[in-house]
């Protein structure tokens, strides 16, 4: 359902994602784990385009959501910088010639018939508009981001009635059912400011579900919570995982990730190091880096 291919993201000089590929089937639950600064959140936020990838492709339901632009490929940029530098100075050793040749090779790879074919194929298969992506893929944030000036109910029904044009009675009915599910029906008329962190996050999850998304992204949903509230939120997510909805979670709760996930994706320094079922990953991690990480957190 979601396919990330060779994704790069650069913030100024900082390269956060360095060619990440990840494929998530419909109904799958995938946890992304890894040390802080490994690019987990950036990867997650790229999937509904809250971050604009520097290079790479993201496909949702077989439709491309990122614009194709090979000239933004980091290798091309690097090579062309080298090329300009060399031309300015005039080289006197063999390495410069090699670099120029490398650049020409890159050109060949991205231009010409193959490149034109690729662009054509993409145009034909048609893009998925950013807003459509966001209607398909919901997101739950670390800091809940409920709208403080709206009651719980208004938070829930705003997007369904304004974006999906659902009649208000239907939206309210749906909101009530979802709030019932997360055990927050008694707070339907409360303002977010009066709720505890755990309650806010449960409402935020219900708000996301109110849009009937095909997939939900969770960006460290329990990291901002007091310890005693973590469980109530994890329980809600756990129950959601059994409903067959596609989920991608960024989490630091290892036990939880092991329990609910179909796959664990271990990210370090912007690269996917391991992608394996939880039992395999947690009992016999292949890489040294994953082993070190697990020793620290388990």
């Amino acid at each position, binding site marked *: 359902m979601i396919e990330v291919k060779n994704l790069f993201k650069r913030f100024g000089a900082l390269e956060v994602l360095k060619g990440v590929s990840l494929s998530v089937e419909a109904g799958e639950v995938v946890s992304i784990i890894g040390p802080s600064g490994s690019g987990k959140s950036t990867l997650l936020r790229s999937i509904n385009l809250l971050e604009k990838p520097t290079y790479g492709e993201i496909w949702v339901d077989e439709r491309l959501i990122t614009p194709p632009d090979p000239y933004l490929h980091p290798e091309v940029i690097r090579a062309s910088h080298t090329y300009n530098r060399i031309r300015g100075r005039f080289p006197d050793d063999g390495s410069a010639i090699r670099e120029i040749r490398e650049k020409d090779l890159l050109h060949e790879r991205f231009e010409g018939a193959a490149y034109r074919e690729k662009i054509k194929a993409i145009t034909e298969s048609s893009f998925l508009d950013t807003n459509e992506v966001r209607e398909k893929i919901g997101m739950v*944030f670390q800091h809940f981001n409920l*709208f403080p*000036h709206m*009651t719980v109910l208004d938070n829930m029904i*705003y997007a369904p009635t304004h974006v999906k044009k659902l009649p208000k009675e239907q939206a309210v009915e749906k909101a009530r059912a979802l709030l019932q599910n997360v055990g927050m029906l008694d707070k339907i008329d*409360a303002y977010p*400011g009066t709720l505890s962190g755990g309650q806010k996050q449960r409402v935020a999850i219900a708000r996301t579900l109110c*849009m009937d998304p095909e997939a939900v992204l969770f960006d460290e949903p329990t990291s901002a919570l007091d310890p005693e509230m973590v469980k109530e939120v994890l329980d809600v997510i756990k129950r959601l995982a059994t409903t067959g909805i596609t989920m991608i979670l960024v989490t630091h709760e290892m036990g939880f990730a092991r329990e609910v996930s179909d796959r664990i994706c271990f990210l370090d320094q912007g690269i996917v190091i391991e992608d394996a079922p939880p039992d395999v990953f947690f009992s016999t991690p292949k890489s040294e880096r994953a082993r070190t990480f697990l020793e620290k957190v388990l």
Partner: protein
Amino acid sequence: MQLNFSVVWGYLPMFGDALLVTLKVTVCSLFFALLLSIPLSLCKISNVRPLQWFANFYTSIFRGVPILVQVFMMYFGIPIATGIKMNAFTAGTVVFSMNSAAYISESMRGGIRAIDRGQYEAAMALGVRYPGMMKDIILPQAIKSVLPSLVNEFIGLLKNTTLIASIGLVDILRVGQLIQAATYRAFEPFFVISVFYYILVMALSRLGKALERWVNKSDRG
């Protein structure tokens, strides 16, 4: 010196009409100022450079030129330059609206900037488009946070409306000048006028406080 307030009583009906003029100019200007300040502040925070330039230029003009000069310009200058004639009420209201809009848009810009990034992200993640996001999610919170400075701006506006006396509209101040001319008494009429304005401003700030309490109800639930 002998004070004699009885000279003012005879003019009380005139004060009634004048009060209505002052209130009309204030309320109209206030309404249009708010209306105008929203697109202005949106221009200021937009990524489109020309829109920013326009809004900043607009603000600099209305902050840079004394408001009395603006009133004279609108009432005496513009008709000669363009042939568009305006009565004193319209000219005054236009100037006060545009002037206040410049100031309000500045504080509104600050209010919008202060809204947490997460609010935008949550709205975007729910598929909410830019106009809806601004209208229903960002601006209501921004206006709430700038309400105290808005009340300040409105008080300033109310007091600035005395300047329309200078282009001949009979507001409260003008009545005082008329009384002075007719009776050669200055203290009594201007004292009464001071009281009028003081009460108006106090009422306005009370109203502002009540409004603040009302919009802040979501903080306590």
